[in-house]
């Protein structure tokens, strides 16, 4: 039995339909995630509309260097993930596994930079509470949203790294055929995490820099 035939599961008549089924499932999940993150973006939009000056003051304290480097890392990881999917579809096991590993490494690098950024933020006391250094008080709203949105994003990314790692290991150990459409689900989730950062980048790091 060829790898492609071994990858086929019930009740699908062929791999293309099976891949489509995986895509529909993961896109339904992504649609729900859009609303989850959308609620956070909505909170940001409302408070920024109400307190534009406070948000301008608060956002000036974010570390644009770390935000930019992390954007570059995630964009690159989305490319390596796409190459892994294409390689998988063509039965090119080594390229697929190497690209999955690269994707994981880029994701891990993101988390390392995020950790460094968090350390710098905490050193400046930018955590909402009694001793928050900025005025007016509404600046705390921005920083509460900053910690919440970047924190939830980091949890999603860490989850993605785990999923990609497990999937790379499964392919490496040949527990699944290389043509398995499951990689489509993994990749779509990863790209969505990248999408969220693309939106967060201007909201958190580029406010009123001029």
């Amino acid at each position, binding site marked *: 039995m060829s790898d492609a035939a071994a990858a086929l599961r019930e009740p699908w008549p062929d791999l293309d339909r099976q891949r489509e089924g995986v895509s529909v499932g993961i896109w339904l999940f992504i649609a729900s995630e859009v609303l989850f993150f959308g609620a956070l973006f909505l909170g940001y*939009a409302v408070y920024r509309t*109400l307190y534009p*000056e406070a948000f301008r003051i608060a956002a000036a304290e974010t570390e644009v260097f770390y935000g930019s480097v992390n954007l570059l890392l995630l964009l690159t990881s989305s490319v390596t993930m*796409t*190459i892994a999917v294409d390689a998988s579809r063509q039965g090119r096991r080594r390229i697929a596994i190497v690209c999955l590993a690269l994707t994981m490494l880029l994701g891990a690098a993101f988390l390392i930079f995020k950790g460094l950024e968090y350390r710098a933020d905490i050193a400046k006391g930018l955590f909402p509470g009694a001793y928050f250094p900025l005025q*007016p008080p509404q600046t705390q709203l921005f920083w509460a949203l900053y910690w919440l949105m970047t924190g939830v994003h980091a949890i999603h990314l860490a989850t993605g790294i785990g999923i990609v790692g497990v999937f790379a290991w499964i392919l490496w150990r040949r527990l699944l055929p290389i043509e398995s459409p499951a990689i489509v689900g993994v990749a779509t989730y990863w*790209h969505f995490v990248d999408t969220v950062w693309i939106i967060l980048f201007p909201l958190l790091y580029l406010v009123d820099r*001029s």
Partner: protein
Amino acid sequence: MSNSHGSPTHIWLRPTAVWVALVLLGLASLGSAYLPLNAFNMPLNLAIAGVMVILLWLFLMDLIGSAALLRLIAVAGLVWLSFMFALTFSDYLSRACEAPRGEGPPALRGDQQIDRGAFEGKASPPRIGRCSPG
């Protein structure tokens, strides 16, 4: 995910081209944030982010080569999101002001009473719309 089934070059070609476009757009967004465009900085940055997301979804998540059902699901999330934004802002942007914009909550708080005099002609009517002075 790409549908390319071609030569080894093709595996790298399209994702790399999209990556170049995404990085250039990211740099444009970063650079434009330092231009004195005033109120147009954020709309421009968000527009660039929107283009980046479209590129990512079309070419890396392969919505462009997907079945109509997938594109429908992808758009559905965004449609419901737009409803959530529209309904929320139709509320916040049409509330009567209690304080000048940027200095306090613009709506009645839980511990405040409605000024019934305003409805009986004993006081000026509540200001409707965005919280502008006057």
